[in-house]
Structures are given as C-alpha cells and as structure tokens.
C-alpha cells in the first residue's frame, strides 16, 4: 500500500465537491473560533454608542449592533460559545449514549428498561424538553449543555443499540465467546469498533442540531445569559431592530445556517463513505 487508509479515506470523501466545500467552511469557522482574540477586529463587548446600528462598511465589515458593538467580532467570539456548547453536547451524548446503547443491545435484560426511558424522552419535542430542563435547572452554559445532552443522548442510544443487536449475533462475536474472551473485551473491541462509524455520523448530525438548538434556546431567552455573545443571543437581542438594521440579525443567522449546513453535509459525506454499500458506487 502506498497511502495510509486515512489518506485514501479523505481523498475518496472529498471527491464530492460539496463535501469538500463544507469541510473547508467548517474548518475555517472552527479555526476562527479558536484564534478569536487574534482575528477579531474589535473586542466583542466594547460598546460605542455613537456608532450604534451602523450598516456594514469600512470600519465594521458586518456593521454594528444596538450598542455599537462590532458584529463580525461578536460572530467570531460567538462561534466559541455556539460551537463549544455544540461540541460539549456531542461529547456528553456520545459517551453516555454509546455506553447505554452497548449495554441495552448486548444484555437483553437491560434492554426493556433503557429503551422505555429512551422512548419516553424521544416522545417529547426536542426544543420543549430543552426549554423545560433549562427552566428548571437555571440559565447557564453548563445547564444548556446538560439539557441538550439529555435531549440528544437517546438518539445515540438508539443507533448504538440497533448496531449492537446486529453485531452480537455475528459469527466473529460468537467466535470470541467460544474462545472465552471476556464480555468486557467483546463489548469494547468487537462491538465498539464496529459501531464507531454509525456513531461518528450521528455525532456530526447532533453537532448540527445542538448548534441550532442552542441558538433557539438563546433566542427564546432560555439559553445562555444574554451578555455572553453567542449566535442565538445576538439574534435575540437584535430582533427588535431587524426592520431598520437587517445586518444585526442577518449575519449571525447566516453563521448558524453555514455551520449547521456544513456539519450536515460533512455528516452525509461521512455516512456515504462509511456505509460499505454506498461506498462501492462512489
């Protein structure tokens, strides 16, 4: 083999231009979030009342908001909170969801209990449940992560459980059992390695949902406190000026669309790559 599997993998995935474009956009957004203090032209919280609600121009590329704060800088800093919360939600729901999904799928005695809880949670509309949880827990970034993790973990449990149910019956798992391989190793090696790809695909989708949901929660006032710049809080505080100063809500809105759409497209690309049936046709 000339190339490592990873290189071949990405080469094949990026053969689709849309996936490649989405990946580039996503990388740029994430990179900007990481190095925000160096790339943002202004402090996101520095108030200049004289320059309030200025349209996009030379000094403020994307205009200013009702307090004269630079919108571009706030979008860049907002990416930190928005993507940070999204990423935290992905991390928590993946970890917890994979664990419970494996257990429910492998140990049939646990399945009934776990799946009834999952069904009950999934029966409630996502955003309503999240609003309820934040209302109960209190509005903070941590509680938003907690609430959204509770909302999205059941999805992961479903995906992992379904794959585990298939895998546990496969001969290579039977072979491991016949060899006396420990159940822990069967779960952590034979099953986990093979559910990794559907879980990874699910992760990108949950990332997108979480970014959207965070914006929705903040917009509704049930998210992070309004003084923290996130894409959601920017739209929420700017909405009353939207008819006279469209840029106040348009650009944060575009940031949300761009980030969520890119995540979805990358997720789609990953799924097509990881699904052996689709891979052959690519």
């Amino acid at each position, binding site marked *: 083999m000339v190339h490592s599997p990873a290189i071949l993998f990405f080469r094949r995935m990026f053969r689709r231009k849309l996936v490649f474009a989405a990946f580039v956009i996503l990388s740029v957004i994430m990179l900007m979030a990481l190095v925000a203090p160096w790339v943002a032209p202004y402090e996101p919280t520095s108030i200049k009342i004289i320059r309030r609600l200025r349209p996009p121009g030379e000094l403020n590329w994307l205009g200013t908001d009702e307090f004269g704060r630079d919108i571009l800088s706030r979008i860049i800093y907002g990416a930190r909170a928005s993507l940070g919360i999204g990423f935290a939600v992905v991390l928590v729901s993946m970890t917890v969801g994979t664990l419970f999904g494996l257990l429910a799928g492998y140990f049939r005695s646990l399945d009934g209990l776990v799946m009834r809880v999952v069904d009950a949670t999934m029966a409630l509309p996502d955003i309503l449940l999240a609003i309820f949880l934040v209302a109960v827990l209190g509005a903070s970034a941590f509680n938003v992560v907690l609430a959204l993790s509770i909302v999205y973990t059941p999805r992961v449990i479903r995906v992992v459980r379904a794959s585990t149910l298939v895998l546990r019956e*496969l*001969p*290579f798992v*039977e*072979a*491991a*059992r*016949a*060899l*006396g*391989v*420990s159940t822990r*190793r069967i779960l952590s*090696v*034979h099953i986990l*390695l*093979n559910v990794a790809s559907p879980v990874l695909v699910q992760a990108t989708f949950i990332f997108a949902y979480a970014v959207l949901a965070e914006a929705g929660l903040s917009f509704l006032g049930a998210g992070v406190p309004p003084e923290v710049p996130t894409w959601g809080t920017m739209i929420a505080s700017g909405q009353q000026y939207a008819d006279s100063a469209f840029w106040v809500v348009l650009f944060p809105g575009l940031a949300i669309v761009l980030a969520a759409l890119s995540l979805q497209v990358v997720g789609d690309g990953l799924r097509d790559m990881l699904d052996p049936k689709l891979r052959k046709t690519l």
Partner: protein
Amino acid sequence: MSAAPLLAVEGLTKHFGRTPHIVRAVEDVSFDIAPGEVLGLVGESGSGKSTIGRLILRLIDSTAGAIRFDGQDISRLPERQLKVLRRNAQMIFQDPYASLNPRLRVREIIGEALDAHRLASGARRNERIGELLETVGLQATHMSRFPHEFSGGQRQRIGIARALAVEPKLIVADEPVSALDVSVQAQVINLMQDLRQRFGLAMLFISHDLDVVELMCDRIAVLYLGRVMEIGSSDDISQRPRHPYTRALLAASPKADPDAPKIRRMLTGDIPSPMAPPSGCVFRTRCPAATDECARVVPKLRSASGGHRFACHYDTAHDEEPAAA
C-alpha cells in the same frame, strides 16, 4: 465405542420462544464423539444442525438434556466455570466474511485466542501466531493484514488457525466449506483432514452435503426437524441406509456418473414448521411409506447392527422401493 467419549450428548433439547409460539429446534438428541473421531451431522436447512453445534459450545443455552465434555456436564455451568470447555472446544464458521472482525488485524484475531488463555505473550506470541498461520497454509507475514485483504478460502484458513490456537480437542465445524467456491472447498477439506490427523482432533462436522460428510466423517447422524433419524458409521449410512429419509437424501445427492440410473425424486414439499411438528414420526408427512401407525407412535431409535441405529417403525433396508403410499 471403546474409549470414554470426549463428548456425550444426552436428550439435548432446545426450544426457542415462549408458549404458544414455541419453536422446537432440537428435540431429544443423543450422540457421542470419541477422542479423535469425526461425527457428521447432516440434514436440510432448519433441521437444527447449527443449533446443536452452538448448544455444545454453550453459545446458547439448552432447554433440557446433558452435554458431557470429558465426563463433566457443562450444560448448566456458569460462564466463569467454562474455561475447560473454552480451551478445548472451538468452532469453525460457515461464513468466512462474518466470522472475522473486519476492524482487527489477523494478529489480533488469532492473538485474542492466545491472550484469553494466557498461552503466549511478547515475542513468543507473534512467533506462535506465525506458526499457526503456516499450519493452515498461510504465511507468517499475513498477520499484519486485515481480513478484507484475503479471499474467502484464505479467510476460512484464518478462522481455522484461530480455532487451533488454543490446541482444542474438539472442533465444531458448522458448514465450513459450503460458502466457498467448489475449487477452494476441496483445499479446505484437505486441510481439515490433515489437521485432524496431525492433532488428533475430534470434530462435529455439520453439513448438508452428504458427499463431503462421507469423505470427512467416521460416523454420520442424520437429522430431521431437530431429531436424529439415523446414526451410524459412514459406510452404514451411505451403503446400508435404513431410514426412508436417509435413503431420500442419498437419492437426491447428485452423482458424478452420468450413466447411473436416475432414481425418482422421493422427497417433495418442504420441511414442516418446527412450531407445529407432525404427530408421531415427524417425517411421516413426506415419507413415501408412511402408515397410520406413523401418525400415532413416535418411533424410537433402534439398533440395526453394531452402532447403527435408526428411528423408523419399518425396516427399509432392502433394495426394493418401499411400499407405495
């Protein structure tokens, strides 16, 4: 059999599901296998062959009956007390694609067997994996490859190497060649013959192909709807079948000689549902010689000669066609 059997199965029964939808997959099956002996298990699909193999290895739990391995009944032991079985009985699977974890290298697939029983570690581990690969006709350098880099036959060899890693006394081979190309089948059969000689392996050889079974096995058990219809030496079964089902199977298996007289097809229809097996003799619905008695009385296994036994009220040993139904 003179020697104490390595494996003795008595009254083995497996029902799936709950009342009223019980699937009677295996019903009161008894046989034994002496050390180094190969017993063939033949039957149509749905006859419970694979279920028996999995029951013996405790991959699934039996409903009733005893499974004595080296004299100890392992049918009810908890998993942590099964070390002896796990070390001494292994399985070779039908599907060479599904039986190897696609995400693991061959080194890990075979090494796992060594790790599970702490048979070799460090440099010795790699050495042993190389030895095993060479034993099954592959090369030691193959250990750093992934399963998808091999052909079906090669994968089956890897599966065999994995089974041999713990130096078992018994191997359950579940249709080990039926998923392979005909040209490769012969190679794998030859390999298994060699290994059997070399390591004195006993085998439960599960197949629906009577020719392969005749070639591989010392004795054959014919299974129908989870019950043993006839059991005896390979010669008894292939040359002197006593049960009408065995005779039908033999007649149905294709012969290499185009001039051989064509025997009319004796078996029609499908195997009945194991959820609602026929009363009396389970084969009576497809038996050309069935009578009223067959519907009432379950035929017991009875001796023909030596170890040759069959479960039929009538003796169809003679060459003439059984009385027309």
